[in-house]
């Protein structure tokens, strides 16, 4: 199988200058490979650095050391050392990211928010619109809400809008940060199906799934993230073990 | 020029009122203005025995040009017999003793306010315009430094705004006098408050045209045979006024007409604004 993400020696420490320069080591010397069509679940206690790792994979956080090599079209790009415009390009075409919270321009209609990632890479507006509508329908967002801005939506609705946005483009790599956290059973099932379809088309998926049922349904492997010591003295022990 | 320097002991004034050094200064400004067509050349405007705004700029230009052999014609709104024209003509007759005329063809220097004679001028003539405001951008640009930069970089978009606004509000370009022109394809200039009817006469005119603004202390020139383009749009070309009537005195159909009220009942008639032109035409008719 093709390796789409290859992480090696990745370390991350936060230095909080506003709090007396405290250093918080998050993880140290992480290595991870994700292949096309597989879904890896980041696992570990709260605060272990799962979200930090996921955000690092999206180049949202800047790791201190190591590499994150992503297959972008015909090229391999190291996100740790990539130019900003390269990262933008990778995010536009290769890596999709569903965050826990929807962060968009206020007063923009839901349908336009969902459509945007597709039109940005040049997919015709009508085609993008059709797909956005189909996704919103699958995620049970009532039709009457499509033309409204999501600011007043419930937490679950906002999250589903966020998911729709993340699945608009058939990204080769998908990063999912607790996509089902505030969803009911029916909607969880819709998301599970979307993830399974993405796997079937060969997407490499890395996610944080707290819901055991979802995890069982989609994850092929668990990747344990353990907190490193504050001073980065101790090498992380990370292990990959098959699910069940 | 020797004759210019002649000083009559009996006379309390220099020839043509201004002292010789002042006239030299003004002539230098005129030469510069001729060398850079349409460019406003600053000059040291003097006090004249007329209030500023009554033609002191034109007066100073004329004074610095006059020689003993010149023949001066002065018109105001086209007429030789209005108060201003008569006063200025008398003034120069008094302080220089040069001959004066009302006939356009006989004059060597014509000082004018608000008109260009109907009869085509020749290369032997100079026409001097009295100009209250030489800066066509002044209505939009109050800062002189900014206006100068606009001229320097020839970025005249703001002037076209005026035309644009006219068309969008009124359907046509409404400016009917002091209609701005581009001289020699370079400088935007004001032709002084002449009706736009007269603008085409400036284009490739055989006579030298000088514009003097006394209060604003600027002189600009349109040398003979210079391209003068009135501002317009490709789809709203420059046009001049058309008169449906003809002159009720001489029957002219090609001249700029003044409307006069004949009685309290509102009866009106049109006559040539150029009195000399009208008189000459009437004379020709009687002769023939």
């Amino acid at each position: 199988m093709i390796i789409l993400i290859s992480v090696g020696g990745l370390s991350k420490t936060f230095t909080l200058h506003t709090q007396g320069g405290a250093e918080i080591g998050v993880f140290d010397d992480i290595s991870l490979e994700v292949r096309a069509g597989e879904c890896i679940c980041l696992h570990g206690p709260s605060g272990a650095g799962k979200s930090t790792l996921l955000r690092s994979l999206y180049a949202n956080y800047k790791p201190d050391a190591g590499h994150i090599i992503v297959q972008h079209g015909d090229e391999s790009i190291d996100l740790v050392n990539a130019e900003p415009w390269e990262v933008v390009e990778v995010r536009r075409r290769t890596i999709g990211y569903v965050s826990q919270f929807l962060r968009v321009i206020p007063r923009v209609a839901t349908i336009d928010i969902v459509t945007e990632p597709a039109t940005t890479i040049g997919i015709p507006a009508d085609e993008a619109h059709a797909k956005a509508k189909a996704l919103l329908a699958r995620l049970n967002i009532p039709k009457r809400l499509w033309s409204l801005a999501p600011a007043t939506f419930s937490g679950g609705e906002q999250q589903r809008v966020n998911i729709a946005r993340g699945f608009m483009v058939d990204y080769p790599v998908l990063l999912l940060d607790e996509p089902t956290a505030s969803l009911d059973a029916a909607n969880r099932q819709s998301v599970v199906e979307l993830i399974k379809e993405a796997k079937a088309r060969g997407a490499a998926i890395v996610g944080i799934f707290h819901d055991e049922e979802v995890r069982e349904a989609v994850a092929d492997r668990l990747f344990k993230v353990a907190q490193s010591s504050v001073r980065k003295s101790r090498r992380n022990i990370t292990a990959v073990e098959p699910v069940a | 020029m020797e004759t210019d320097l002649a000083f009559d002991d009996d006379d309390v004034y220099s020839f043509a009122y201004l002292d010789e050094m002042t006239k030299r200064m003004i002539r230098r400004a005129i030469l510069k203005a001729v060398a850079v067509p349409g460019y406003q050349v600053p000059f040291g405007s003097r006090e004249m025995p007329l209030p500023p705004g009554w033609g002191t700029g034109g007066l100073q230009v004329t004074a610095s040009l006059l020689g003993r052999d010149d023949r001066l014609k002065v018109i105001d709104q086209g007429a030789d017999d209005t108060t201003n024209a008569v006063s200025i003509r008398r003034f120069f007759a008094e302080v220089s003793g040069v001959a004066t005329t009302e006939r356009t063809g006989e004059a060597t220097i014509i000082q004018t306010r608000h008109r260009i004679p109907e009869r085509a001028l020749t290369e032997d003539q100079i026409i001097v315009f009295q100009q209250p405001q030489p800066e066509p951008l002044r209505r939009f640009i109050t800062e002189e430094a900014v206006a100068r930069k606009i001229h320097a970089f020839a970025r005249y978009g703001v002037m076209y705004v005026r035309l644009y606004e006219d068309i969008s509000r009124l359907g046509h370009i409404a400016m009917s006098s002091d209609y701005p022109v581009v001289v020699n394809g370079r400088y935007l200039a004001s032709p002084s408050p002449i009706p736009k009817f007269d603008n085409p006469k400036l284009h490739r005119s055989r006579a030298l045209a000088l514009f003097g603004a006394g209060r604003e202390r600027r002189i600009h020139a349109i040398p003979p045979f210079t391209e003068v383009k009135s501002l317009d749009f490709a789809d709203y070309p420059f046009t001049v006024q058309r008169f449906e009537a003809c002159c009720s005195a001489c029957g002219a159909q090609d001249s700029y007409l003044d409307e006069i009220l004949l009685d309290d009942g509102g009866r009106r008639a049109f006559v040539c604004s150029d009195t000399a032109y009208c008189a000459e035409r009437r004379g020709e008719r009687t002769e023939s």
Partner: protein
Amino acid sequence: MKPRAREILRVERLSKTFGRVPACSTVSFSLRQGEVLGIVGESGSGKSTLLRCLAGRIQPDEGKVLVASDDHVVDIWAMDEASREQFLPTTASLIHQNPRDGLRLDISAGGNIAEPLMAAGGRHYGSLRATALEWLEKVDIEGWRIDDLPEIFSGGMQQRLQIARGLATHPRLVLMDEPTGGLDVSVQAKLLDLLRGLVRELGIAVVVVTHDIGVARLLADRLMVMQRGRVIEEGLTDQVLDDPHHPYTQLLVSSVLQV
């Protein structure tokens, strides 16, 4: 990977001092077509001075401002003033925080859009009018207001009109100084969305100066943080805001009120 777009602006070691106060110290960056660069920092950090140096308004003491022209790259401060005045108006547009600084309030909305086009040589009323209408529509101002004076427009409409005026000449580079500054929050959002759409549609390169972190996040692809005339941190907007490294950036980000 090949750069997806042409470099439009490159600033090399730009410095400007007012008296003894350094406003910009050795600032360098580059900007590509379609990219939005945000410059954040508190008042007095030098971001507005930097923008004015880029717009040809303030001459830097040192350094270069290289701007792409049709077929080559020009250093705007190495040109003579006349060439610069010829080059910049059709290449770069400056959008002021206060629309009153960028508009003529006593001429119609249409006239405001048409003016820079006429300055660039537009001499056909019909097409000027058509372009003005097209731009009014783009910035969500109804066409029937084309002959209204911007004096009677709301602040948000004035700002949108200023943007239309600035973009109608198809500049490659747009420089914005706090474009949402004087607007109330509800109008800001709409304007931000409009700006994002225009940037994408027109493929222009934008430098936007703001002290509003929220505006920077929504508008800018990349961010430069300035403090006392220096660039202290730069990178992708979300990187800088979500994982700030410099003490000042951390302070700036942590000072934002969360709604």
